[in-house]
């Protein structure tokens, strides 16, 4: 672990960055995000199986941006968010120094023992264990525990249901929503200056946590992330009501792949899914 501290410290001493986003440990294995603004603040930096957060979310926050060039420790999945932010002009490549982490999976939650049972679902079938974009790379990839992708199964199961059954499932789930917007705030790609849910003229999405407002919010949130969501699953982790948001995000990602062979967050130079088109896009559903 000394390595991490050394790497983080050197980012300062070499003058590459003005601040570094990394993970520090608390209460044993638990970690939390931390912005070091001085070399000595990197002393508690850590990399373990519990670096759950996607630190990329901070890259668009005004309070972080004011530091200028930021160094960031990023797993492959986190880097996908950086790629998406680059595609969407939110950050400039030269303003971010990426320390890519070769990742062998993280744990689903802090208070669990890491194993095939508890590995985070996003890590299953991960194609970016080595980040696609970085300035330097640390760690090595090793064999990763296997687990059952329950979410995918659930999606397939839902797909096979009737419309009424699907509706009932999602009505129950969305009804739990309390409109705290933790999903939005935790999402590295929800960087809008003013979320459409906060707009009142006109009020496309009602702010009440009523069934109706909740339905619109969750649908539109998923749609605004369609073709953009990079699958870090921070929304679902942040949700205090345990709404399975990733079902929608995953489903949209699957559609993107099936329809357009598009996988988000792989290449900053690829045109975004929404925002581009192909003359041969599917038309079968249009009369």
């Amino acid at each position, binding site marked *: 672990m000394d390595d991490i501290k050394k790497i983080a410290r050197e980012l300062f001493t070499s003058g590459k960055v003005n601040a570094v986003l990394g993970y520090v440990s608390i209460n044993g294995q638990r970690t939390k995000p931390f912005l070091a603004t001085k070399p000595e603040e990197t002393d508690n930096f850590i990399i373990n199986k519990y670096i759950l957060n996607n630190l990329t979310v901070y890259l668009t926050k005004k309070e972080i941006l004011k530091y200028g060039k930021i160094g960031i420790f990023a797993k492959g999945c986190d880097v996908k968010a950086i790629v998406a932010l680059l595609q969407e002009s939110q950050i400039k490549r030269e303003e971010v120094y990426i320390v890519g982490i070769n990742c062998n999976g993280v744990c689903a939650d802090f208070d669990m023992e890491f194993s095939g049972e508890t590995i985070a679902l996003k890590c299953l079938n991960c194609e970016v264990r080595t980040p696609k974009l970085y300035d330097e790379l640390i760690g090595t990839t090793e064999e990763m525990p296997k687990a059952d992708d329950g979410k995918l199964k659930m999606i397939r199961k*839902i*797909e096979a249901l009737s*419309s*009424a*059954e*699907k*509706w*009932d*499932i*999602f*009505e129950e789930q969305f009804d739990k929503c309390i409109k705290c917007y933790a999903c939005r705030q935790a999402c590295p790609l929800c960087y809008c200056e003013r979320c*459409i849910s906060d707009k009142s003229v006109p009020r*496309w*999405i009602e702010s009440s946590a*009523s*069934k*109706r407002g909740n*339905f*619109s919010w969750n*649908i*539109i949130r*998923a*749609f605004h992330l*369609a*073709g953009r969501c990079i699958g870090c699953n921070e929304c679902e982790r942040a949700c205090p009501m345990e709404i399975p948001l990733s079902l*929608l995000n995953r*489903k*949209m990602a699957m*559609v*993107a792949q099936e*329809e*357009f062979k598009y996988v988000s967050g792989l290449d900053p130079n690829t045109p975004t*899914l*929404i*925002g*581009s*088109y*192909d*003359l041969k*896009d*599917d*038309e079968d*559903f*249009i*009369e």
Partner: protein
Amino acid sequence: MENKTFEPKIIAFVCNWCTYTGADLAGTSRMKYEPNVRLIKLPCTGRIDPVMILKAFEKGADGVLVSGCHPGDCHYNAGNFHARRRWIMFHKLLDFVGIDENRLHFSWVSASEGKKFVDVINGFVNKVKAKGPFEKYEKINKEFVING
């Protein structure tokens, strides 16, 4: 009352240059069609935001029709191509959360296709009639009914 057949309320989002004009043509040709659809004219299908579709359901529509220029015919070059891509994503999303595919209909109707416009309207109205009222959405809407 019971004998009255269900008359669905349908909102159609159409582009000014093709489908709206196609509907005009149906009119000048005195073709008859089902009266359930209310057209909202937009410059281009590219202007149609999925939130509008959702809002239409929220406001009590039993079906939503979306229609514009055929691919390649867009008055604004590519508006309908961008729209088509959004629809692909959006209609799959709605289907996934349980909004019946039969309640949301997409079509291309050009300015010269008065007949097609009539067919699309009649076909869709009948489809929605067969489905009946959108009870699921009505149910979550009911919270609104004044209890005072």
